């Protein structure tokens, strides 16, 4: 099994940390992982994206042009990555701020209203975990136990009390993801 994922959105949406948690979760179940961010000035407020690869075998290129899954969190990223999804692949997006929804019919498209859900829950920071939950519902490539361990690994100890809140957000994402 190899899953090649691009997560793309604005800086500050927790794109990189979502990728990191996913990667750590993969390590927890003994998979090979690679996490490769776009880096540079765009880290500060512009677009941010990260490639995450989980695999049972040695990972080749950490830099890809085609992905099994694209998780898209703003319109610029939609423009850039919709066509990068392999045929038969999956695209997950938050409709908030999307002016031109994805139009491909050879891939599975899912929606998660993460911005709205996070606002309703009164915890905008849980946004990325809601998205992660939505993804894991559709593609359960890592089990929730390992996500919890991954969270513990990627969060500094002083934030460990936030793990239950994050798990809740992941479950909320799992419950609210819809196929479009």
């Amino acid at each position, binding site marked *: 099994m190899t899953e090649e994922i691009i997560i793309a959105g604005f800086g500050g949406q927790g794109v990189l940390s979502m990728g990191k948690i996913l*990667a750590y979760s993969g390590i927890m179940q003994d998979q090979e992982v*690679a996490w*490769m*961010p776009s*880096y540079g000035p765009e880290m500060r407020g512009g677009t941010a994206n990260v490639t995450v690869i989980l695999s049972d075998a040695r990972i080749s*290129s*950490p*830099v890809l042009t085609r992905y099994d899954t694209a998780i898209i969190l703003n319109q610029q990223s939609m423009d850039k990555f919709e066509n990068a999804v392999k045929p038969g692949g999956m695209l997950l997006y938050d409709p908030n701020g999307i002016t031109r929804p994805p139009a491909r019919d050879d891939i599975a498209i899912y929606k998660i209203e993460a911005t709205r859900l996070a606002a309703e829950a009164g915890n905008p920071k849980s946004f990325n975990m809601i998205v992660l939950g939505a993804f894991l519902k559709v593609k359960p490539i890592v089990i929730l136990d390992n996500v919890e361990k991954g969270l513990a690994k990627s969060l500094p100890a002083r934030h460990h009390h936030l793990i239950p809140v994050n798990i809740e957000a992941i479950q909320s994402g799992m419950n609210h993801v819809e196929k479009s």
Partner: protein
Amino acid sequence: MKGNEVIAEAAIRCGCDGYFGYPITPQSEIMETLMAREPWKETGMVVLQAESEIAAINMVYGAAACGKKAMTSSSSPGLSLKQEGLTYLAGAELPCLVVDVARGGPGLGTIQPAQSDYFQATRGGGHGDYHLLVLAPASVQEMNDFVALGFELAFKYRNPVMILADGVIGQMMEKVRLDDRVPRWSDEDIERISGEWALTGKKNERARHVVTSLELDSYKQEEFNHKLQAKYRRMETEDVRHEELSCDDADYIFVAYGSSARVCQKSVQLCREQGIKAGLFRPITLYPYPRLPLQALARRVKGFLAVEMSAGQMVDDVRLAVNATAPVEHFGRYGGVIPTPDEIVEALKKQIIKA
């Protein structure tokens, strides 16, 4: 862990005595990680932010002259500044470790990954007839492994060793198995390992040690250069490293190092899916270059494509090794652009297969 963070962790674990650096993207995490880890409390390792890359490499020079395990890290523009120090280190036969997390150039260039420092790294970089031993990691695991290996080789040859990485390897995270901790060398260890030359304070029973690259007599300087060349020949026989992937039955070979090699691994897969028998030859030491194994392959394959994030630097070494036995072409993206697995496959078809 990120490649850069792993360098820092590996340095602490392998008993490094001193790190001297100056911030530059995309490798600042190395010093940041060290400063956050405070290894001076744990092992006594010194970590110092210098006022410039020039000062940093000269601090390394001072520390190395004492027989200590000293290192620095930087990215391309910073490496240009360090070249003076490197030629002095090579000329004084001092061991040290230098990490270059390369970015796009020339000039200030971009902060994105590139491999356009190949000439600078493998040809010497500064003035005079000298070489660094250059290791090119292609994974975060190798960022770990090459720190201890780098110091080992540096002291084996009394020569600076460079880890030539790039922004991809520095910034990416992968699973990594860290080495066990090794204590820093004691004064007795240094006496045993480098007692012939290290600055430890002149004792009555021995002559003073002088670390210098100056020689006023040109014949003696020539003799010294012979000695250096003999050392480089020895590196070529004892410490050339490379890796071959799917080369056994291959008709076509990608030659690539570092992150380009990772991208090419994918290209090999894509080729094989399309029925093209491609393989990957990955030099691990860029100096000394794995010339002989490449030559051996040249006798039985239909062509080589050197893939680099540069306008064509390593391809020169491929051509020298292949020596016109088989076609050699170059494909590169540069200035901070990373080639994609697909365009590499296309380049192979267009430039080598030509069918």
